[in-house]
Every structure is written in C-alpha cells, then in structure tokens.
C-alpha cells in the first residue's frame, strides 16, 4: 500500500487502523452490497488506511461457514454467494440460461483445461473446425478472453478463461477445475503434435508452462 494517503484522515486513523472486528464488518458490508466479486486491492482502496482486508476475510469466511450464505473466493476476488444446497428454494431467482451447444461446451472446457490455447489447438483437439460464433458466444458470456499471443510463427492469439467463468462455476481458481491434476499427470493436457509434423513442441511448451504457472501462482 502507498504510504502517502490522498484522502483526509482524522487523527485517530492516522495512527491506528480500525479494530479487526470493525474491519470484518466493513468487508462484510462491501461484499454484501456488491453482486460481483470484489478484489482485495479494491477492498484496500475502499477501507480506511492501514486496514488488512485479507485477515478480515479469513475471519469472515469462518463466520459464514455452514450458513445460508457463504464467502467464496473467485480468482483474486471474493464474493458472497448462497449455499448451493439451498438452490431448490431459489427457483424464483433462477434466470433462464441460454443452452450452450455441445461445440461451445467442449470449446469452453478445452480453453479452461489447456489455457492459454490457440484456435488451431482447439481444432486439433476436437478434430473439427471451431464454428463461427462459438468463440464469439463464449466471449459474449465473458467466460473466455484473449490471452497473450503465442510466440510461435504467426504469433496466434490465445484464449484463457475469465474470472466470470470461475465465478459462474464456483471455482476459486483454474487450478480447482475438476480432475485437472489427473489429466495433467496422464499427459492429456500436453500439446503433442502429430509425429513428423513441422511444429516443434518445445516452443509451445515453453509458452504454455509460462501461462499455466502464472495461473497457479497465489
């Protein structure tokens, strides 16, 4: 945090941050008021100088354990969400979701598990061209976004999943995708080109590991 606060502070807060119980209340109120996840950085910016939202979050999470509403982590952000076991009471709140095509669902899964992944790689895995509009639909849903360009000939754009994707599927991070460890251990997330093809796996791997490790940093 910057040590030159811009906002006028009263004397007390110049020296002391509010007590932890107070900080917990603040985090609770901010998260409750927002329907989207709020990052720790944003909490820091909104709370008085000297606060430690990370600690407050830990207390708060414990407090809501087993309640009808939970504190959940979404990437770098936090949000309040109703407990999944109470979903049956909520049919009134349910929004009709557009049914995704099989192609869109598979493409989404490939982006999530193989990210960052190029269009060509998605097509290689599915063995069929990615139809026009499939990627568009996933972009519109805000479930995938553009990642870094791949440093291979042609410098293709890559796709990665978004925080909205994590939020929607109740995932703390891409690391928590179901079965991802087993798939990686089985080599099924490797980028293995057709033997004898021009593509050198080394290039891709470098980049892929790069992107992945970023995702798995805390």
């Amino acid at each position: 945090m910057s040590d030159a606060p811009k906002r006028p502070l009263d004397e007390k807060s110049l020296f002391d941050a509010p007590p932890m119980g107070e900080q917990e209340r603040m985090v609770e109120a901010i998260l409750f008021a927002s329907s989207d996840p709020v990052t720790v950085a944003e909490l820091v910016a909104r709370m008085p100088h000297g606060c430690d939202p990370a600690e407050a979050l830990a207390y708060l999470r414990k407090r809501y354990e087993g309640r009808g509403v939970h504190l959940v982590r979404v990437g770098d952000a936090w949000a309040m969400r109703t407990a999944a076991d109470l979903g049956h009471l909520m049919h009134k709140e349910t929004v009709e979701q557009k049914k995704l095509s099989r192609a869109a669902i598979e493409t989404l899964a490939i982006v999530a598990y193989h990210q960052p992944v190029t269009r060509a790689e998605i097509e290689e895995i599915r063995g069929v061209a990615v139809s026009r509009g499939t990627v568009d639909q996933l972009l519109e849903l805000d479930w995938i976004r553009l990642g870094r360009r791949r440093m291979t000939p042609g410098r293709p754009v890559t796709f990665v999943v978004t925080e909205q994707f994590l939020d929607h599927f109740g995932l703390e991070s891409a690391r928590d995708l179901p079965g991802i460890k087993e798939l990686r251990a089985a080599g099924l997330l490797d980028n293995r080109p057709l033997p004898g093809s021009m593509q050198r796996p080394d290039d891709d791997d470098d980049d892929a590991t790069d992107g992945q490790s970023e995702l798995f940093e805390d």
Partner: protein
Amino acid sequence: MSSEPTLDDWAGGPDRFDAERMAPADRMAAEALIVDVDGFEGPLDLLLTLGRTQKVDLRRISVLQLSEQYLAFVQRAQALRIELAADYLVMAAWLAFLKSRLLLPPEPGEDGPSAEELAQHLAYQLERLQAMREAAARLMARDQLGRDFFARGLPEDITRLRKVEYSATLLDLMRAYARIRTKDEFRPFVMDRDHVFTMEQALDRMRGMIGYAGEWSDLTSFLPEGWDGNPMRRRSSTAAHFAAILEMAKRGQLELRQGETFSPIQIRRKEP
C-alpha cells in the same frame, strides 16, 4: 469371428451386413451410426464412437481395427449415398495409408515417423478428446451461479457520490476496429487518375460536333485540344470517342468506316 456380434459384422460391407446375427441393440446402434452421420462433430468424433465398440481402454485400442471400422463406415455411407463432408474423406485416405503402413513391413531407409508412432498419436488424440468430453460434462455438472447458487439480488446503490464511468468491452473495441477496417476494404474501387476522358464526356462533345461532319473525316480530328499530345491522355480520349461513335452509330446518328484493319476510322453524319 467372435460369437458376440460387433460393428465389424455390418461394417465389413453390405454383403456381410448380416442382420440376423446381430442382437437388436447392436443393430440399432449400427443403424443409428449411419443415419446420424450428420450428428458427428467431425471424423475424430466418429472414430471415438467407433472406438467405443471395441470395448477396451482407449490406451489399448487397436488402431488397425479402428481404421478398418472407419473405412467400412465410409464405404457403407457411400453405398447408401450419404454425402460425407470432405474432412471425413481426408481422414479415410489417411487411415487407409496408415493401415497399409501398419500391415506392411517398413521399407529400409524410410524417413519420418513409424506407423506405430502415427497409430499411437491417433490413440492419444482419441483419449484426449474423450478426456475433454468428460471434463466438459463434469464442468457443466457443477453448481452454477444463477442456477444453484446466487449472487446478491439487490446490489445496494447509495446515491451519495455519482461518478460516471464509461464502459466498453473488448468486444466493442474489436468490433469498432473491424467496422473501420472493413469500411476501408469495401471502399468502391476508384481510379484516382487525372488523365481520364469518359465516354459520357465524349458523347456530349460528339453530339454537338457531328452536325459539321457532312464529309468523311478522321475520328482523330475530333479529339479535344490538349488530349492529343500526352500518350495517356490520347489513349483515353481516343477510346472514349471511339465508344461514343459506336453508340451514336447504333442510334443511327452517324456512319463509320475503316479501310482496313488499323487504318484510320472515319465518320460522317447520317443523312436523315
């Protein structure tokens, strides 16, 4: 042949399509495969479905057998006059090649990957596709926001500080750029040249001048001043005037003649 009916029984070709020997469920499956050919998402999807009939772990699948199944499928689809998309046929050609490589001993001194390596890769692709299918299914089976768990229904807005925030998404940005670039690409093609004399201009001129052409006279003598020196201008004005006199001859306003090929073209007013 095993006593248990498999897809091989029908996949061997129409003559071996012995429905009697198949259990009803297998017969249904076989027919469904053919009828639903449009339902497959590409050759890999079809291979995966065929591969499942081998009832073994994908890691131990017989690629040779799979190739035969696929080729038989394509053959049968063609016999039924089902049109297969090109990528199915490309895969068939590749599998035929792979099959022959698997059956024949390798040629000495041959370059490139071995048939076994290619077969292994195909098995890997199938396993990977299968794994992604299962991952997708598990993903969709998760509790989902707005279906199983819910966000705050009433985000609070305390109107204390009002700040206008301009929003634009990446999609907006890309679409805006695409709009500009395509506008550019679709700009009607215009010849930005100064030395062009159009046929319309020539027609206007000739209409006014034809009255004076009672005798046969060379077309070139009608070219406007300043358009007979510079070769580019001369070419353009000559072409425009030639087109104009053809038009006027068609309308019966003048006559034209030419002694021989490439000799001067002469025109004369047509007497009414």
